[in-house]
């Protein structure tokens, strides 16, 4: 698999800050940012997650020319599978349970981050109605061009079994 690169661009950071309702000029105004402790436009603390935009075959982004599981003429663009329960809702069953970030320094506009995923733990838990919940960690380390670690992102997903 090719190395995944995440170029941190000014307009992307600006749009991300807007979307989380943060009008802090350190996220878009270079003149203001130059006078701050960091001295440059930085990204909000959860921005690392937006590297999804650069992930090849990211499953939650429509792929040009391929059917998408969201609605169009029908409530979903995928054909129902025969003989099973509603296979189209499979993707909806996985939920994001936890998210953790560890920062060595703020992410800055101009960084080109290299993503290094590594395996995490998997564990099971029974919920109150006796269903098995499977939790799994997905860890990604973001390194800068000089090989320094910038952010570690640990995401915990949960799947409900039968």
């Amino acid at each position, binding site marked *: 698999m090719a190395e995944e690169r995440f170029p941190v661009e000014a307009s*992307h950071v600006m*749009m*991300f800050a*807007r*979307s*989380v*309702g*943060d009008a*802090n000029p*350190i996220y878009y105004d270079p003149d203001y940012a130059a006078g*701050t*402790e*960091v001295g440059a436009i*930085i990204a*909000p*603390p*959860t921005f690392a*997650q*937006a*590297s*999804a*935009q650069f*992930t090849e075959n*990211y499953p*939650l*982004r*429509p792929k040009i020319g391929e059917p*998408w*599981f*969201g*609605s169009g003429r029908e*409530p*979903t663009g995928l054909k129902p599978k025969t003989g099973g329960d*509603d296979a*189209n*809702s499979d*993707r*909806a069953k996985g*939920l*994001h*349970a*936890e*998210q*953790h*970030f*560890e*920062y060595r*320094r*703020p992410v800055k506009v101009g960084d080109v981050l290299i993503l290094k995923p590594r395996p995490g733990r998997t564990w099971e838990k029974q919920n109150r109605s006796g269903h098995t919940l499977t939790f799994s960690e997905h860890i990604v380390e973001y390194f800068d061009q000089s090989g320094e670690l910038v952010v570690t992102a*640990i995401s915990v997903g949960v799947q409900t079994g039968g």
Partner: protein
Amino acid sequence: MALSASKLKVGDTKEEVLVDDLTRTQIVMYAGASGDYNPLHTDDLFATKVAGYPGVFAHGMLTMGITGKLLTDWVGDGRLTKYGVRFVKQVWPGDTLTGKATIKEIRSEDGVSLADIEIVTTNQNGEPVVTGTATARLDP
């Protein structure tokens, strides 16, 4: 502006209404910026008819992002060393979210002053939607 260890004490809090009447448009903005286009968050027809939810709901990461503003407004820009949350309850369009951050510990590590912070964001019914912790670097 960052917080100073000498002026801060355990139990200090900051509380703020983070979003009043969350709109579907803001959820769409987050989908576009983050790259998570899961129709559960933006496509009412899919969310109700296929996934069986009462409607679209916010990305957990949107609530985490909104809550992040409370932290950075308080501890200063570029001061977080850790930020983590659990997604406790779904956030729906129309929700009003209030964040509260509380200083749990002030300590020193390799000569650097750090504050450990507990965070909880609640909806208009007082139910926590995300809970978590953060650590921030302080001025002396």
